[in-house]
């Protein structure tokens, strides 16, 4: 009974989304206030029913209702409760239901938060969001219904994929979705702007906090995914340039570009059409990512199965969304052309350079991800595009980005004095380069070109940020500044830390696979590992071999690590649970491998310097985003906007 309620709620959701879409667009087109008045309650209703529907699926999981085939396929009575909840979005159907829930959440937030926007504009925004919801709701109801019953029900569930039985995965998809789908808000604002054809740039200011919020979630989501892959997939890699990862990285790159170009549009009224295009692109790439992951065109570490019917549906939906948006853009963009002036050395130029580099990087990643598929589709010999290719093309763009970032932060709108800029920055550059030449060899005893470049880039950005504060302090006697600016500086420091982490982990990781018997030890660098015991342990739904490895640094004990090799009872799949001794400066990572017979076991030992900086950097970027979006100017302007638009219509 309860799953059927979920089904009904989902259908009601679809009806409300349709109402939202039809009355929103039609009402705005014909300027009927009573039609437009429908969208807000419809959006709230959609949220209510989406929540209800999602809740029924959670209940089905908690009650072990194995007559629901999705539950039977992804849960088990022995599955811990936390993972029963996480299992709701552990596979295709449920993750789409999560998508719908998150989409309705964003829509509802926009509906409630847009009270002060002109009604015609906000109706179009919500109608566009309704359109996206309709697409996904139909997708669920037609091809991927999580409430499907099977008769007779299963006696026992097939359990959740063991890889997903983990805290990182429990939280990773919701956060990632908040980011992905958040870009639909910027998309909807862009569509509404183009439909309205209003030449002012208020929409840029309205879009900014929403875009930043979506970007913030996506940043955290990607970081969580990387962290999860690092400890759960078991071989200590934090980024694989896997297609599924790229699927989330491309919208992030475009989203980052969008945040920056929105700043120009908001402040200076420039690059309107470019910003609109980026808004469309960011969400299109989110949808493309969904297509890649959900359609099964990729067979990768991360996504195992799907079916072609679903793929076709998403492809068509993607085509409709992207093509109609681009058509609208082609018809309307020229209206947004503007004549503003700025000098060659100015913040506008710096942000343009940022955009060119970020968008190029996104297209490089896109091309590298799609190329093998296109190649295969054309029947050409298969080619693998892996890490070496991505690194070769992405890293130079990233380094250029870092170089221009340090300069860009010190530029002014319209025009900057080149001489004072050079005077300000030249010593910082010298210090960064010298330090980069010296520091790696000082700490690690060896160095390489990439290490020097990475260190220089990170130091350059950090020094540049610091000098911004210093100059402010010297001229004003304090470092007070608007929140948005604080957020900008913080986020850039985050980028620098992330780059530093990537550089040092890549250059100085040490890794060894060894065979040890109980009582034997192995020394790797300054660390020694002693295999003390290996014993059987029982988990709720698995049995495991657990090794106890004593860890010591230069003879001083750091305690024990307990990596496991698990065998999940239902799925019969072996899983490696690594154990990590984590410090900010380095991770010591131990994974247990096979029993080699005669009492010896294989172990993978790794030392990964500064690997935490990668995720820490990402979190600091997200913090920067949070600070920026709490800037009060976004919340003050609304009154002025309202007055302004009234004045215009009068």
């Amino acid at each position, binding site marked *: 009974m309860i799953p059927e309620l979920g089904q009904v709620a989902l259908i009601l959701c679809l009806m409300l989304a349709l109402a939202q879409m039809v009355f929103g667009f039609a009402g705005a087109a014909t300027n009927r206030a009573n039609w437009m008045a429908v969208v807000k309650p419809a959006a709230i209703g959609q949220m209510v029913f989406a929540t209800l529907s999602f809740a029924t699926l959670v209940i089905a999981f908690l009650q072990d209702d194995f007559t629901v085939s999705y539950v039977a*396929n*992804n849960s088990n009575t022995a599955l811990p409760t936390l993972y029963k909840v996480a299992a709701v979005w552990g596979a*295709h*159907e449920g*993750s789409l239901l999560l998508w719908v829930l998150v989409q309705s959440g964003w829509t509802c937030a926009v509906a409630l938060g847009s009270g*002060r926007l002109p009604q015609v504009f906000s109706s179009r925004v919500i109608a566009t969001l309704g359109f996206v919801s309709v697409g996904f709701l139909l997708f669920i109801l037609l091809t991927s219904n999580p409430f499907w019953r099977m008769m007779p029900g299963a006696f026992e569930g097939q359990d959740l*994929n*063991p890889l997903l039985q983990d805290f990182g*995965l429990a939280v990773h*998809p919701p956060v990632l979705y908040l980011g992905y789908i958040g870009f639909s808000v910027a998309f909807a604002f862009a569509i509404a702007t183009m439909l309205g054809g209003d030449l002012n740039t208020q929409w840029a200011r309205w879009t900014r906090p929403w875009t930043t919020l979506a970007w913030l979630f996506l940043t955290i989501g990607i970081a969580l995914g990387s962290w999860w892959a690092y400890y759960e997939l078991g071989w200590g890699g934090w980024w694989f340039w896997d*297609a599924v990862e790229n699927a989330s990285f491309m919208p992030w790159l475009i989203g980052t570009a969008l945040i920056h170009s929105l700043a120009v549009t908001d402040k200076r009224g*420039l690059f309107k059409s470019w910003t609109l295009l980026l808004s469309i692109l960011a969400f299109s790439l989110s949808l493309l990512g969904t297509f890649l992951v959900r359609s*099964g065109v990729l*067979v*990768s*570490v*991360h*996504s*195992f*199965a799907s*079916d072609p019917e679903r793929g076709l549906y998403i492809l068509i939906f993607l085509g409709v969304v992207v093509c109609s948006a681009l058509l609208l853009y082609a018809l309307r963009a020229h209206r947004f052309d503007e*004549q503003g002036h*700025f000098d060659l050395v*100015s913040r*506008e130029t710096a942000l343009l*350079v940022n955009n060119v580099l970020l968008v190029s990087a996104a297209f*490089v990643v896109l091309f*590298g991800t799609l190329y093998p598929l296109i190649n295969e589709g054309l029947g*050409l*010999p298969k*080619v*693998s595009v*892996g*890490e*070496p*290719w991505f690194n070769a*093309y992405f890293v130079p*763009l990233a380094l250029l980005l870092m170089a221009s970032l340090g300069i860009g932060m010190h530029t*002014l*709108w319209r025009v*900057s004095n080149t001489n004072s800029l050079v005077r300000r920055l030249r010593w910082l550059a010298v210090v960064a380069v010298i330090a980069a030449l010296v520091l790696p060899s000082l700490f690690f005893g060896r160095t390489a070109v990439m290490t020097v470049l990475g260190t220089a880039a990170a130091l350059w950005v950090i020094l540049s940020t610091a000098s911004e504060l210093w100059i402010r302090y010297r*001229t004003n006697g304090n470092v007070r500044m608007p929140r*948005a*600016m604080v957020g*900008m500086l913080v986020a850039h420091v985050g980028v620098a830390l992330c780059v530093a982490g990537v550089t040092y982990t890549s250059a100085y990781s040490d890794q060894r*696979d060894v*065979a040890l018997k109980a009582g034997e030890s192995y020394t790797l660098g300054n660390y020694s590992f002693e295999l003390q015991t290996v014993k059987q342990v029982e988990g709720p739904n698995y049995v495991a071999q657990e090794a106890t490895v004593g860890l010591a640094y230069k003879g001083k004990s750091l305690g024990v690590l307990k990596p496991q090799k698990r065998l999940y009872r239902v799925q019969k*799949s072996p899983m*490696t649970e690594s154990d990590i001794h984590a410090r900010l400066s380095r991770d010591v990572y131990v994974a*247990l*491998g*096979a029993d080699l017979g005669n009492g*010896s076991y*294989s172990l*993978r030992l790794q030392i990964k310097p500064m690997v935490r900086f990668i995720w820490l950097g990402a979190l600091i970027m997200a913090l920067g985003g949070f600070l920026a979006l709490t*800037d*009060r100017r976004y919340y*003050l302007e609304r*009154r*002025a906007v309202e007055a302004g638009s009234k004045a215009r219509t009068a």
Partner: protein
Amino acid sequence: MKNKIDRKNRLDGRTFAMFTLPLLLIVLLCAPLTQAIDAQTLNDPVLQIRYVAIGKELRCLVCQNQSIYDSNAELAQDLRRQVREMLEDGRADDEIYRYMIERYGDYVRYRPPWRVNTLLLQLFPVFIALFGFWMLWGTLRKHRSVNAMKAGSPELENSESAQDSGADDTANTSTERR
């Protein structure tokens, strides 16, 4: 987005045979949930470093985007053994790659080759970046102004919300909440 296994297909015999079965085979062949921990190390540390590097650049052909170094599939173990033997034989990295590519095609190596059919792949990033900077140049020319020099007032303008600082300051804090 990640890691969804869709086992609904098992209910339907035809779908199962067509899609799930081959996939299941791959999964079984590859056992992708365990990573390889290969205690076979080469005695010479320099060779060992090369061994790891080569292992990470060769693709396990029966797996889902895993290198032979990371995979536990039998094929991967076999390829690793071959790489080890060739290294101990004193063969150069290039020779090993060439040997693998002759046997398994370009697909086996994660670093795509420079060939006529991969020219587009290798040159696209360069094109896209050049195109980007060309667009940038066009935009800069369009917006370039001669007398912009007079417009800026550096100290004020350097703040992120400089243009609005007036509005910000005059606004009453009590009106901050909508």
